[in-house]
């Protein structure tokens, strides 16, 4: 049977659409593609709300099921799952409205807000690690920031996912420390040009080629960014003495001002007494 170019394109499209006949969902449009499958917007006809439907190949169903069991504020909740007539698996989940991280930080976003997002992402990844799941493909395009500032880590990877250049760790077999690398790459991406050297050092340490030279796990990385936020010395950077002094000054500004005021008053009293 002969097939023209336009019919070929049409067939490639329609044959890949999920057949949701017999489910409560009505397909709308494709909204994304990831390592695990294609995501569509759909309408839940029973509850009258819009949802996201992720279609996963049958061979990845086992891994997808483990990922679907992750319950965390920064991981998109799954409402329901099922099997399509062609054996592909579908997951109905919350339809996240917001902006992708790379688009979100293109606007005017403070350093504190950037670090807050990194922390949310890191907490979700650390939680997943405790359940034996690694992300494998952390990158700005897989993080969504909702309209109320909520952060979601999307597109949790499976064995077959290869990662994305620039964010993927160099080792061939990915493990938890590969996510540490990707989180470091994400931090580097989030940092503005004028970022403090301590934060750059944290990103550099997380992205070391040798996995054993990186942070041992995600919480260790987050603790170091936390130290920076608290005005403490970070583990990743041996700072010069003048920088330490400056940081001491910033951290103890109120105390130093009080001390200066005390010395000033004392001096004034001494001066008046000797008039």
């Amino acid at each position, binding site marked *: *049977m*002969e*097939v*023209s*170019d*336009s*019919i*070929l*394109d*049409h*067939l*490639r*499209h*329609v*044959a*890949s*659409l999920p*057949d949701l*006949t017999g489910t409560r969902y009505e397909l709308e449009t494709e909204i994304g593609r990831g390592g695990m499958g*294609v995501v569509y917007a759909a309408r839940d006809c029973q509850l009258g709300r819009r949802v996201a439907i992720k279609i996963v*190949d049958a*061979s990845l169903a086992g891994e997808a099921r483990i990922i679907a069991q992750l319950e965390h504020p920064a991981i998109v909740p799954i409402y329901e799952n099922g099997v399509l*007539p*062609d054996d592909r698996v579908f997951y109905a989940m919350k339809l996240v409205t917001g902006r992708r991280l790379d688009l979100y930080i293109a606007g005017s976003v403070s350093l504190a807000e950037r670090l807050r997002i990194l922390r949310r992402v890191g907490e979700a990844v650390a939680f997943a690690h405790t359940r034996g799941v690694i992300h494998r493909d952390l990158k700005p395009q897989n993080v969504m920031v909702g309209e109320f500032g909520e952060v979601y880590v999307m597109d949790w990877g499976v064995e*077959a996912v290869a990662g994305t250049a620039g964010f993927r760790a160099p080792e061939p077999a990915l493990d938890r420390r590969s996510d540490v690398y990707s989180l470091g790459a994400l931090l580097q991406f989030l940092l503005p040009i004028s970022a403090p050297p301590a934060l750059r050092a944290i990103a550099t340490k997380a992205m070391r080629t040798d996995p054993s030279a990186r942070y041992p796990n995600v919480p260790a990385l987050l603790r170091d960014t936390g130290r920076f936020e608290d005005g403490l010395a970070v583990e990743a950077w041996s700072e010069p003495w003048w920088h330490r002094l400056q940081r001491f000054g910033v951290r103890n500004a109120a105390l130093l001002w009080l001390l200066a005021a005390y010395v000033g008053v004392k001096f004034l009293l001494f001066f008046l007494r000797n008039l």
Partner: protein
Amino acid sequence: MDQDTAIGGFQHQFPSTQVSLLEAVSTGPSSEALDRVVALYWKPVYRYIRRKFGTNNEDAKDLTQSFFMSALERDLFARFDPLKASFRTYLRMAVERFAATQHSAANRLKRGGGAEFEPVEEQAATTESPEQIFEREWQRQLFSLALDDLKAHCEGYGKQLHFQIFEAYDLTEERPSYALLAARHGVAETVVTNYLAWARRTLRACVTSRLRGVTSGERELRKEMRLLWK
């Protein structure tokens, strides 16, 4: 103009039980695996040679035929390493090496006597690279074979109406409305929706099956599927 060819044949059998290419090679004669490969790859190889080397229709057919014959003689499948590349890429590179050698040998013989090249206007008819043409023809042939499988399946299981509705809607440039199709066949619109969904689903299964027959295993199959579906 580009002349078409029927060499390579059509297979009408529903291929739901095809095993992977490597399995077929290890458990049966190489010629069986080659039949599958020829059915899917004859036209892509033929068009690739025409575009890459500017050969005329007959020379391209001869070169394509020679390539598949030598593939059998040289045990092409035994040297395929799925860790290095997909079978599709491996085959295209093998064709390129083979055709380049044969083509330059033929040109040496004809030097001074005027080797035959495609007329310039035919060469300029497309801006696609030979590799793009190969990929496109591969997809086209995969769907052509899968459509043959679907049609045979519908005929075998008394689902001719399913195929007629699918053909009228998905295999034509101007798609009639569901209402018009329902009226034309004397069924409800929901029947049209359901029949179309069934046919598309079955077509997908036919494509998967054909693809499984020419890939090394599940990993390569999944990779090819990801590239194939829009």
